[in-house]
Structure formats: C-alpha cells, structure tokens
C-alpha cells in the first residue's frame, strides 16, 4: 500500500522534479526553504495541480501522462490538512467534521470529536474556537474520512508556540494510529524530526537530500540542511537530573530533565574538545572519536562518534592545535547547563 510518485511540474518559471516513494507506516516530512515547491508537491499529490509524470497509490494510478489519466481530487480519498485549519466558517465544528462523511455522518463525527475531548465544542463555529482547537478539528475532519494518503501542509506553523506542543502531541498520536501513508510538509526542523521517520529535503524544486533525520542532519549537503543541522537533537528518557540518550543509553547530566520521553538539544558550539581528559566543571565528559570534519565558512564542524554522537563546532586553529583529523580520538565535554531538555 505504498505511494510512488514521479512529479514534474513546470510553470511560471518554476520547475518541480521530484521522485518519491513512501511506504505504509512511514511518516515522511518534506522539508525545505520557502519557495522550494513543498506545497506544490502536496497539491500535486492531492490532484489539485496538473503534472507530468506518474502517481500511483496502492496500485491505483492517480496520474499518468503516458495514458493521459488523471483522477480528480474528490475521487482520490486523500486527506489534506492546511496550516490554518481552513474550516468552513459557516458550519459548526460538528458539521465540518461530518462534511466528508455520508448519511449518518454526524453521529460518527460526534464520536471523533468526543474521542479527542472536543465534544463540548461540537456546535461552536470555527471563529469561536481557539487556534489549537480549530486545527485539531481540521485534523479530525480529515481523519474521519479515513483517507489512504494523509497530506499535512505545515500543520503546526500557524499556532502559538505554547499551543504547538500540545497539538503536536495529538498529531503524533493520530499519526501513530493512522494506517495509511503520511506526508508532512514543514519548514520547522524540530517538527520534522519530532514527527517523521524520514526526511525529504526539497530545494528549488528538487530533492537534495533524503534519509533518516539523524542522517540528514549529520551530513548537510546544502545551506538549508546545514542551518537545519545547527543543533544536535537527541531523543532520550529523562531521569530528573540526567537524560539517557544514544545507542547505549549513555547518561547526560542535565538540569531539570523531568521524567519521560524528552528531547535534548546541544548546540555544536557548546561541545568542547580536549586532547586530554579535562578536569573542570563540565559534568559531561567522555571519550569520543572525530569521524569527519567539514569546513563551513570560518568554522569547522566535527562529527563525533562515541557514547553520545554529536556534532561539534570549533575554529580551524583549534583543529590544528588538537591535530584533529578523521579518526582522531578526543575528549568531549559538554556543560550540563548547555543542554536544554524538553518533553517530547
């Protein structure tokens, strides 16, 4: 039940040329700077934009230039969620959720709303809902039609930062239960990494990188991804005063880690490298190995392996002083206070 798409669109001086395959159970995040073509790609997959190429979902051909086949949007059973809900303003939340359902739809819709804890808002108009509630209703409206392909266009970017986390959690929950194919468009790397299994990076209408989030951020191949890779993002379990991260469950001392699933963010600049084991305040010190060095302007990014894989950013002269080269062993130190932890 996978999606195979070769999409080529040329219009208004812009060209999109993307080959993408998505497997069931996979959440793919399409990432890229503004104007990269992410929304155009989504609309093409939804059937709203004419394209050249071939789009096939679960064996059913949606678009095929060779046979001039094009299945209209309303027959595709794809779900589309926009960044600012786009709920029908003249209908109640219940009517919105029931819109895609047939007879008896309002009962089913009510069940969806109640399951999401929004039952009391069933008769509210979209204007009376908060941003977060509206976006959640929009998600329900789409999920209720049980689409085979779920397309989310920057679903969180219109929300307040405070609301975003809550909606992201609910989104993650819904996505986990969703049995179809999921494609999310976002320009927020945190969102991508939090929700996706695979990243597809789009720039100027072309795929520049694709792979697991860790892979993609570890080896930037363009400015956008490099900016993306500006932070080390780790996932782990909080244990109040430390976090367990990495393949071997290494322990990172952090202030206030709380309990449960967490993200830990360390800026490469906060990673200090030593030739000998440092004796000082940093709580987190371990022995690692420099795997790869990348020159980026006036800085050098050093990809480190070890109990906690990290990217460090140092100056070229430091590299010289430490005789850093691929394969060199170093001591890695990160101050606990330089690590920010938050719930996943």
């Amino acid at each position, binding site marked *: 039940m996978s999606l195979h798409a070769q999409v080529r669109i040329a219009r208004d001086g812009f060209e999109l040329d993307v080959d993408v395959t998505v497997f069931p159970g996979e959440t793919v995040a399409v990432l890229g700077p503004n104007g990269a073509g992410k929304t155009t790609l989504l*609309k093409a997959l*939804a059937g*709203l934009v004419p394209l050249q190429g071939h789009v096939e979902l679960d064996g059913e051909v949606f678009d095929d230039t060779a046979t001039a086949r094009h299945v*209209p*949007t*309303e*027959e*595709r*059973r*794809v*779900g*589309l969620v*926009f960044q600012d809900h*786009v709920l*029908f*303003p*003249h209908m109640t939340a219940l009517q919105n959720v029931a*819109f*895609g359902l047939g007879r008896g739809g309002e009962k089913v819709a009510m069940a969806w709303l109640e399951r999401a804890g929004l039952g009391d808002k069933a008769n509210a108009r979209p204007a009376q809902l908060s941003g977060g509630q509206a976006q959640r209703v929009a998600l329900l*409206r*789409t999920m209720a*039609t049980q689409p085979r392909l779920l397309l989310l266009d920057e679903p969180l970017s219109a929300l307040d930062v405070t609301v975003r986390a809550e909606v992201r959690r609910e989104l993650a929950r819904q996505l986990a239960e969703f049995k179809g194919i999921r494609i999310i468009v976002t320009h927020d790397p945190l969102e991508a990494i939090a929700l996706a299994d695979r990243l597809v990076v789009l720039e100027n209408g072309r795929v520049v990188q694709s792979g697991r989030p860790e892979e993609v951020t570890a080896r930037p191949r363009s400015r956008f991804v490099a900016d993306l890779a500006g932070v080390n993002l780790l996932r782990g379990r909080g244990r109040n005063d430390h976090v367990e991260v990495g393949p071997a469950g290494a322990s990172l001392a952090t202030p206030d880690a709380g309990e449960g699933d967490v993200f830990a963010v360390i800026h490469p600049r906060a990673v200090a490298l030593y030739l000998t084991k440092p004796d000082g305040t940093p709580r987190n010190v371990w022995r690692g190995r420099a795997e790869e060095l990348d020159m980026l302007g006036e800085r050098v990014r050093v990809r480190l392996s070890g109990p906690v894989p990290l990217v460090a950013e140092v100056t070229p002269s430091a590299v010289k002083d430490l005789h850093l080269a691929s394969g060199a062993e170093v001591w890695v130190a990160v101050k606990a206070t330089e690590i920010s932890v938050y719930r996943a």
Partner: protein
Amino acid sequence: MTQARIPGPLIALAAAGLLLFLLPLAGLVVRAPWDQLGGELTAPETLTALELSIFCSLTATAVALVLGVPLALLLSKTTGTVRGLLRAVTTLPMVLPPVVGGVALLLAFGRKGLIGAPLNDAFGIQIPFTTSAAVIAETFVAMPFLVIAVEGGLRSLDPRYEQAARALGASGWRVFARVTLPLLRPAIFSGAVLCWARALGEFGATITFAGNLPGTTQTVPLAVYVALETKPQGAIVLSLILLAVSLAVLVGMHDRWLGEP
C-alpha cells in the same frame, strides 16, 4: 485609541459630496404637495405604475441571480484574453447609454430582430411592447452590477476552501452549493440590491424596447416623465414614493448581510 484626524480640506470636500446627495432629496421632500399626497397616492395610475415597477424590478433581479451567479463563476475561473473578452461583454451594458441598449435589444428581439424574427415567423411571439420586454430591458442594464459584485466576491474567496472540500470528497456541484455559495452570500446580496436598484430606475432601454403603456410597460420612471409635463404634482408624489421604497430597502439592509463585521 484615537484615530488619525481627517484633514480639513478633505472634510470640506466630503461635506460637499454629501450635500450633492442630500439637497435634491431635500428638495423633493420639501416641495412635495403633502396635502395632495393622499389623493395622488391612491390614484389608479400611481398604484399601477408602482405595482408594475416592483414586479418588473424584482423579476429582473431574480433572472439576474439565476443567470448572473453562474456567469460570475465562469468569469472567475477563466484567465487571460478569454476572461478579458468575457468581462468586456458582461460589463458593456453598464457603459452603454440605456437608449442604445434599448435599440440593441430591438435589433435582437424585435419583430425584425436576430432572434425576434424567427420567433415571430414560427410562433407568432412578439416581445416588444410587453411586460416581458420591460423585464428584459431592466435585466440587460442591471445584471452587470450583480455579475461584477459576485465575481469580486469569488476572486477574494480563499481557494483553499474549495480545495479542502474536494479533498474531503465533494463533487463540483456539492462544493458550489455547500461551500462556495454560502461563503458568497454577502457579495450576492449586495450585488442583488445594486441590481434591483438599477432595474427599478431604468428608463431609456425600457421606453425604447418595451414602449410606454400604463399597466403593461409604464414603470414609475416613465410615469414620472409623462406626469412631469401634465401633472407635475403627481410626478413629485411618484418620485417620493420611489424614494421611500428605495430608502426603506437600503436602510433595512443590515451591514451584517453585506459582510461587514
């Protein structure tokens, strides 16, 4: 929060503009033969003309709605030269002098007209000099107002509503009926009011195409014109009535229906 003050000269100009509207209306009200009002009001010619005007203008508006909204939809979905041409054609009646419009209607629907001749020869149907002709004349000059208002509404509509509806499985007709049309309500309403007002006041096309016969084609504007020479007082009363009816509708129209918050 205080708003920026409007500069003095602008206020003066605005006041002049307001006077331009108010003075003629004031003249009408002040010079009205209030003592004769009752008699004139109930005069059969007055009531006939009023009845006919209301019937024709409402019918014209109804026709304009049925034909004009789909036309506006078509306009909004075309681009480039096709749209330019279509728009020129649909707004032409607005710029055309009404009498010219009347002549054009005769040449199309008159007994010797493009469509009128075959209709007459085959079925003996003659359109000029009938109430239908008055309705057609009014529709011709007034429909462009509706089309323009609705097209404007359509163009300012977020295209994502339609996209969302289609993604949820709604067919073209369902999208139009359940999403587009309700969202267009303010534009349709204000367009219909403009259309109706224009239809009510139509003179040149009506007299040229439909003629002037009390009870059949003599709408209030025509009746006022005829009365002006022979019975000026009657003309003033008729004008007052039309003014009152129009005012009632315009004032009764809530801003909310026009889409204001």
